[in-house]
């Protein structure tokens, strides 16, 4: 097996996760899928954060405390995002066609 420290593995995993999720975040149209991508980007970023700081024995408590903070902040943003998804749904419902098919809704998202 290649010489790979736990810190490097964590960094690489975090970087790949961030990259994959970031691209999806910027391209996907469905709002819920976008928020999920946002969460995965957050997970990747926190792996990077802890992976970067993981060089001491015993574990440095500061970066772990930072990661905890990051997790809480991510859930706050996700929650507000989902509240807004519902508001968008309420906002745009009358414009939907009467047969209940939901076109003209998700594909409006851009950027």
């Amino acid at each position: 097996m290649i010489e790979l420290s736990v810190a490097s593995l964590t960094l690489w995993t975090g970087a790949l996760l961030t990259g994959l999720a970031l691209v999806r975040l910027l391209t996907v149209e469905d709002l819920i899928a976008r928020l999920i991508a946002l969460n995965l980007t957050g997970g990747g970023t926190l792996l990077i954060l802890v992976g970067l700081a993981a060089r001491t024995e015993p574990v440095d408590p500061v970066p772990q405390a930072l990661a905890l903070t990051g997790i809480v902040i991510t859930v706050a943003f996700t929650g507000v995002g989902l509240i807004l998804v519902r508001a968008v749904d309420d906002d745009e419902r009358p414009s939907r066609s009467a047969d209940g098919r939901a076109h003209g809704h998700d594909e409006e998202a851009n950027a």
Partner: protein
Amino acid sequence: MSALLPAAVLLPVITALACLALPRRAQPISGFLGGLASAAVNAAVVVAVTSHGVLEHHMAGWAPPLGIALRADGLAAAFVGLTGAVGFATLVFAASAEATTGRRTGFWPLAMLTWSGLMGIFLAADLFNAYVALEVLGLSAVGMVALGGRGAPRAALRYLIVAVVGSMLLLTAIGLVYAATSTLDMDLAGQRLTAEDGWLPLVLAATGMGLKTALVPMHAWLPPAHAGSPPAVSPLMSALVVKGSFYLILRLWLDVFPRNDAVALVLGVLGAVAVIWGGVLALAQRRLKRIVAYSTISQVGYLFLAFPLLNLPGHQPAMVSAVVAMALAHGLAKAAMFTAAGALMLGTGTDHVDGLVGAARSEGVLTAGMILSAVSLIGLPMSLGFTAKWQYLEVALQTGAWWIVLVLLTGTLLAAGYLLRPLAALIRDSDTHEEVGQAEIGPRPAAQRWVPLALGAMAVGAGLFTTDLTALTSIGWG
């Protein structure tokens, strides 16, 4: 004395708690009182820094690198003062009528949380703490945008994504700085960070903050968010919230990251493109609030245009003073413009430029405020906008940066172009243009007339105090 600094962050939070606990009818009065007290604390911070120099408070009694410090130098104090002035004026405007704050409750607590987030960023001396304060600012600003009318939730959601991506880039940058320097304190990190370790976090942080400040080409989220907000939210978004992320990258640039000419040049060129492209887009708009929103993209360009000049040895103090003057001028003038636009929109039911023809006849005070604001935004002599551009120009001429001179002149012409059209419509006498009737404007509460005038007058009048501003911003460094 230094205990003022946490108070400046926490008093707005207490106000937000009070507003949240009260029914909507009682929120304006508690918000107004809390805003008044917070503005007084902000003023006290500015006075204290002016008279005593740099203030520093160690939170929980732990000194950096283990604990978190709050620090106010001249640069921070200038932005603290701007927040007090614009924040309080906007709260007065918001208290004038419920319609200014959108169709839902929430403006008052969210506005005060935004205030708190801004203070947290301006006073932060710790990298991670600055990130947390930035998140307070981002989330409360998203909430305020969402209070607008139809389409606002979608604009807010888009802004939320932008805000989170920007912060994640910043967080990665902070992780890299911590890995390289073993500290989160900005000053200590700045002393320990080498050019070799510094470039990657700088690129990440600059990208993140550029995104949050709507630097071209990452600007598309701004117009729907700023123009679609309720009348009392747009001035806060444009004058203050955008400054939060800009301040942070400026602060990191000056205190933490080693000099990097390549990044400075990229930021400067993007700023130049923003000045011109934002101006062209503003010219193409037909609605007042969208003109003002696109103008923000152009004005943000001026802020980033400063980076190549900030790097020049010997010119840094002058350029810091210049970029602070630019940020203050934009903050005051843009708040005047957005409050005026909001008042006109509430009065006429439209912000279409053609629908505002002749409004100056009944709304003379308000129009005067808009004219003063335009004087500063364009950069006509004696205004703060003028002195800011003049300081840029001096450094650019001394160092032979002709492209910056060219951008400054073009930007001035464009600003004159996009601002004169709505002003001309307001002042125009409808009799000579029979095809468009005179705007029907309902009577505006006094606050909606006088707040734009007061802000506009400050944007122009502050130009007389440039030397004081330069003296203030030089406190603590340089």
